[in-house]
């Protein structure tokens, strides 16, 4: 089959390769500079290679609070999004009511809205309501788009699920909880897990909404941004970048494989 496909012209191949390199080489450079011996400038090629920065990064006290904050925010927003997103999806899949489509649009709007708008509006809302900045204000900001991810995944799976199996379960004597546990959850599980992982990854490296809702606190991405401006122990930032990369890329990869079987939405947008 493959040999029958028309061959792409050479120019197109070079352009495609160039595009991919342009997109992905900078990531490799980030990895490379985590091992450089030069700590003030990013000169190319690196004068020497070392793994000492991993040790230095481990010893730096100022890395740990942002890392914990990021993990905490991502974990809480994900759990919140999984609960609320699933509930909204369940309601949307089951009920037909006035304004359903409009409500559905409102639910997915945060992901279409620019982060600055979400951030500004939340910041002014917190200001109006006299809510001090805390972990929870960041969580609220992140939950707005995390819910969408979970919702999209759950709704896609529910739509594929035959509604009859819930009725069949009740008909066979299962109460609502048993139907949820034995029928709905196993069929929804991988979609929820995928949605949760994506939500975690998105929350973990979010910068724009976070800057508006964090106050004086730094999440890991904000800490990295501030660190780049200061010229000391620069490769430490790259070491942290590798950590962020692993923390976000692996869940996204897992989510992709979990939902690959069907026509499910995994990212759908962001």
């Amino acid at each position, binding site marked *: 089959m493959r040999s029958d496909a028309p061959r792409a012209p050479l120019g197109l191949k070079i352009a495609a390769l160039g595009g991919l390199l342009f997109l992905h080489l900078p990531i490799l450079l980030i990895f490379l500079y985590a091992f450089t011996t030069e700590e003030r400038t990013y000169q190319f090629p690196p004068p020497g290679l070392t793994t000492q920065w991993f040790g230095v990064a481990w010893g730096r006290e100022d890395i740990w609070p942002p890392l914990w904050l990021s993990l905490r925010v991502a974990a809480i927003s994900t759990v919140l999004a999984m609960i609320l997103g699933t509930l909204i999806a369940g309601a949307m899949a089951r009920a037909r009511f006035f304004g359903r489509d409009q409500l559905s649009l409102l639910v997915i709007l945060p992901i279409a809205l620019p982060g600055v708008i979400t951030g500004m509006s939340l910041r002014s809302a917190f200001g109006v309501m006299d809510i001090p900045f805390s972990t929870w204000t960041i969580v609220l900001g992140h939950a707005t788009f995390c819910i969408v991810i979970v919702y999209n995944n759950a709704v896609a799976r529910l739509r594929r699920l035959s509604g009859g199996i819930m*009725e069949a379960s009740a008909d*066979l004597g*299962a109460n609502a909880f048993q139907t949820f546990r034995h029928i709905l959850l196993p069929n929804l599980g991988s979609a929820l897990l995928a949605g949760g992982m994506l939500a975690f990854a998105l929350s973990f490296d979010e910068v724009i909404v976070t800057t508006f809702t964090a106050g004086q606190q730094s999440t890991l991405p904000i800490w990295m941004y501030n660190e780049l401006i200061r010229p000391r122990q620069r490769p430490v930032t790259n070491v942290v970048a590798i950590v962020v990369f692993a923390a976000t890329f692996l869940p996204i990869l897992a989510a992709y494989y979990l939902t690959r079987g069907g026509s499910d939405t995994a990212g759908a947008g962001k």
Partner: protein
Amino acid sequence: MTAAVEFLNVSRHFGAVKAVDGVDLTIAEGSFFAMLGPSGSGKTTCLRLISGFEQPTGGAIRIFGEDVSTTPPHLRAVNTVFQDYALFPHLNVRDNVAYGLMVKGMARAPRYAKAEEMLALVHLEGYGDRKPAQLSGGQRQRVALARALVNEPRVLLLDEPLGALDLKLREAMQDELKALQVKLGLTFVFVTHDQHEALSMADSLAVFNEGKIAQIGTPQEIYDRPASRFVADFVGSSNVLPPALTQALGGPARWSSLRPETVRLAVTGPVSGPVTALRYLGAATRVVIRVAETEVAALVPAGQPLPAEGETRSIAFDPSALHLMEGA
């Protein structure tokens, strides 16, 4: 004997739509009861009222004498074979069949033993480890049947269970279902839009039209003495004769029905017309004659002389075969 299912003036209205409108019916215990009607006639809604997935907006439903108006589906002693089978895609066949026992809290070993027993009953021994997606349509149908029967329901509801099967499989399953019903002595309530299926399987049947029961009775009663034009039209390929024609044939000025197999062709007679169509059916040939704007079909048994298309023939029949119906 208490009736298995009783409807007392039951209605189910969806806003202005009267899906079920003032239905009274009694289903005897141990009988095979068919609900027949075109789509949208209310037969499936009636079934869902019995299973509890619909609530009546008026009237009362009794199952074995007990009013079930406030009983949720999972507490009713009825089980359903769904139209699209609704098998659980993530469970294998054995777990699908054992599901009803599992949610009741039966331990694994006895419920699997029971499931195997049910699979044997529907001739699916050895299929326990397969997933529903690995089965053919007919096999899924049997799994759905086994899954519903494992709970030992007192009433089994079947919602057009054979609709998705091809003709041959369908006829085999009709025989099997009927045999199973007799063997288990259960009450079967069977919804279908296929008149042959209803007539051949049911002990009694209700013909639905626009949310109301048009006629209720044994297959023979309904076939021989349709109460209305609708029933005559829908149930069989009967001739429906308008009042004028009935009168011309020697009856009163009322609508009547006349079975094609009772009609004989004659060369002369009071009512005649041209032969407009001939359809060979194997054991007989269906001959259609146009008399006074009405098409009248006659079944001519194989071996008897047939008229050619366009020839004029008159119709004759035993006066007792003419069945008068209600309504104008």
